[in-house]
């Protein structure tokens, strides 16, 4: 059956919304309206089809329900193609395919943006460290070959990246394990914290005033909890905190960093968090974002998650990325209680940014 000419009177309907689609139409003569409701506002929208235009394409192509009602405004003649006939037609006219691809891409981009605007709980993380962490996942799970692939690609994309040196180390570890045991086998892989390989921050960097009243509180509660039994980790941690108290963030950072290669898990988490605060106080905003993003992915259930998000937000704000900053602050509000210190800070920051 070849494509057919069909005549419609003004006021008639060619197809209704939600009808199952079997055809694609081309308006040869006349005037047709496509009527639908906007998803977001619910308001009625009208698109006018002009002579020479196809309509009902997307639904017709994949035989999905119609998204709109096609109303005839003035007596019209249309050419009706079955889905197969339409495919045959565009196979011979590749310029139509290109046009449609562009139109579909634009629609997809627009809807994608709308969807993104609703999904505010998506934490903005950093693709570079996320990418690296996939390598870490494979290595930890003894998938050595895959780990090597990811580390190599990481080095390829980020030759001067913050984990480039670590990635090279990891490849050696993975290669050795692969040779000795093969994929999926061997003892548990003990990975050092990737931030250990990071360059030490010079203590001569510029300092800003510590805008943080919770440092001392944390210090106190920590000391109380572990009275009379001070480990090396605690000693370093307290030293770091007191260095922070006298605005020596670079030195404090170095002390905290030492803890990361030691044993006490509980203090390692605290130290890791404080390192982020040091970076922030040193105005190393990009590093702060990376650091706290890493914190979030490592300890998603830690009670300091809202605070980490606050620092990420504040860093974005300092870098002039208002939208990202606002997303973070909003997330802080959703994760904390109005009485929390961090809630009030985020609320205040949100007001100021607007």
């Amino acid at each position, binding site marked *: 059956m070849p494509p057919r000419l069909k005549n419609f009177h003004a006021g008639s309907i060619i197809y209704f919304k939600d009808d199952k689609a079997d055809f694609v139409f081309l308006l040869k003569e006349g005037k047709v309206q496509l009527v639908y409701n906007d998803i*977001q506002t619910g308001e009625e929208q009208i698109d006018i089809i002009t002579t020479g235009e196809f309509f009902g394409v997307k639904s017709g*192509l994949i035989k*999905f329900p119609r998204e709109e009602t096609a109303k005839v405004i003035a007596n019209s003649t249309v050419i009706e193609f079955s889905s197969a006939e339409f495919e045959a037609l565009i196979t011979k006219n590749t310029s139509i395919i290109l046009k*449609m691809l562009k139109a579909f891409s634009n629609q*997809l981009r627009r*809807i994608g943006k709308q*969807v993104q605007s609703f999904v505010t709980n998506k934490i903005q993380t950093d693709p570079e460290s996320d*990418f690296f962490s996939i390598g870490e996942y494979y290595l930890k799970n003894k998938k050595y070959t*895959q780990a090597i692939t990811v580390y190599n*690609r990481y080095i390829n994309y980020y030759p001067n990246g913050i984990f480039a040196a670590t990635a090279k180390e990891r490849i050696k570890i993975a290669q050795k394990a692969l040779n000795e045991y093969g994929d999926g086998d061997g003892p548990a892989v003990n990975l050092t914290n990737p931030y250990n390989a990071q360059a030490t921050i010079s203590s001569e960097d510029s300092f800003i005033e510590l805008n943080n009243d919770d440092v001392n509180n944390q210090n106190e509660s920590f000391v109380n909890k572990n009275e009379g039994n001070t480990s090396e980790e605690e000693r370093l941690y307290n030293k770091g905190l007191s260095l922070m108290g006298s605005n020596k963030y670079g030195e404090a950072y170095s002390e905290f960093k030492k803890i990361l290669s030691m044993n006490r898990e509980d203090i390692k988490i605290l130290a890791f968090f404080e390192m982020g605060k040091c970076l922030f106080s040193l105005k190393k905003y990009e590093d702060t974002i990376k650091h706290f993003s890493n914190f979030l992915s490592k300890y998603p259930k830690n009670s300091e998650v809202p605070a980490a998000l606050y620092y990420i937000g504040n860093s974005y704000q300092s870098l002039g990325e208002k939208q990202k900053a606002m997303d973070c602050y909003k997330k802080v509000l959703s994760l904390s209680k109005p009485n929390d210190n961090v809630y009030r800070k985020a609320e205040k920051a949100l007001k100021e940014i607007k």
Partner: protein
Amino acid sequence: MPAIMDFGPGFVEKFGKRFKKNDIIFCEFEPGNTFYFLLEGKVKVTKISSDTEKILDVLEPGEIFGEMAILESAPRSATTVAIEDTLVLEFSKDNFETLITAKPELAIKLLKVFAKRIYDQKRRLMILTLNEPEAKIADVFLMLAENKNINLSETKQISFDITPEQVANWCGIDKMAATQILNHFAKQNRIVLKQNEIIVTNINDFYRLVNSKRKIVKNS
């Protein structure tokens, strides 16, 4: 579509790329501007979340993947791994027009992938535009039922292979908040929560809930 398109040897020589079993084709978060047409073998699509690898899909010959790269230069949203020895065709933005002229069937396939994706995204937007989180969650199940081609008027109880976390992702609400609502639904016997499975006791009940909320959105 026929099972596999007929590509001349020259075409395969030019664009073909072979991957061995377990090779990574592309990795989540990796920058990328190429997309693929699977000719031989199977490919799994995975995502790592909370330290476990989840398989989202297994692709068969004839399928297109990585196609979002021709739209935007965002990092990959998932990892693809060959699960057997695999032959793919690799295309980029640059050789795209050549491809369309030489293989319009493939371009049409891509059109269909995009068309389907537009439908999916619009459906997701309908979930997101609902005001109440309860309605959003109920609508996630309606959407999943639609994707399964289930006739709502004839079916009551439906089981879904989904976790509370995935439900939360679909409707853009916090995991904790979503879990609370799901627990509440479970107390009311509207759903049964199991490991990696959620059973909706009466899908029509959710349909009515969502519909009443959606009307309010439209009239306001």
